[in-house]
């Protein structure tokens, strides 16, 4: 990402970022790993579309989204979002919004495995409520 490579433009005063980790405990109990399923081709296209819409809405200079797939051991990072803009309010709003979209609108399916087996994790009512605060 250019934000980290030194090619950042002099107008860029604000870099907000977020890293989401696989926690070792979920509301369902201990977690050993997550498994992130995706739809090759479609997932990339949809995430790009969401990212583009977020970048336009918040006048970003740059937006990076990295999302892991496959098996993710507990404690590992899962997702990184970084938004570069002139001012901090836009960078913060874009990072929050991109994360909210990823939780409900990005084609990933997440299976959590603990000592007592595994279960699919789907968005919560809180996730949908946060997402509905943004218009697309």
């Amino acid at each position, binding site marked *: 990402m250019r934000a980290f490579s030194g090619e950042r433009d002099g107008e860029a005063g604000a870099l907000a970022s977020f890293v*989401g980790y696989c926690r070792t405990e979920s509301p369902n109990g201990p977690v050993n790993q997550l498994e*992130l*399923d995706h*739809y090759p*081709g*479609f997932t990339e*296209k949809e*995430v790009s579309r969401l990212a583009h819409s977020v970048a336009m809405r918040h006048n970003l200079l740059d937006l990076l989204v990295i*999302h892991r797939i496959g098996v993710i051991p507990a404690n590992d990072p*899962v*997702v990184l979002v970084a938004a570069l803009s002139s001012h901090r309010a836009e960078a913060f709003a874009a990072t929050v919004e991109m*994360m909210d979209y*990823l*939780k*409900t*609108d*990005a*084609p*990933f*399916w*997440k*299976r959590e495995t603990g000592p007592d087996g595994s279960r*699919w*994790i*789907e*968005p919560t009512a809180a*996730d949908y409520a946060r997402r509905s605060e943004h218009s697309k």
Partner: protein
Amino acid sequence: MTRILFFGRTRDAAGCGEMDCEIPAAIESVADLRAWIASRDPELGAAIAAKDIRVAADQCICLNEGASIRGASEIAFMPPLSGG
């Protein structure tokens, strides 16, 4: 030949992530497809019948049950999306 993809909990029900099928010419809509799959595999049919399972034809989400899937080379069954 149409490739049918199953994600999330529909993959568990299908027992695999994808299958190649010869879909009969009479199957035109999303609703037809769900019914046809249920007639061949009632358990899988029940799993994909849930209202929150969306269908995409050639990587475009079908907006309703009447949407045509005729001629699609790839059809996906997708439970609620959740990344992050």
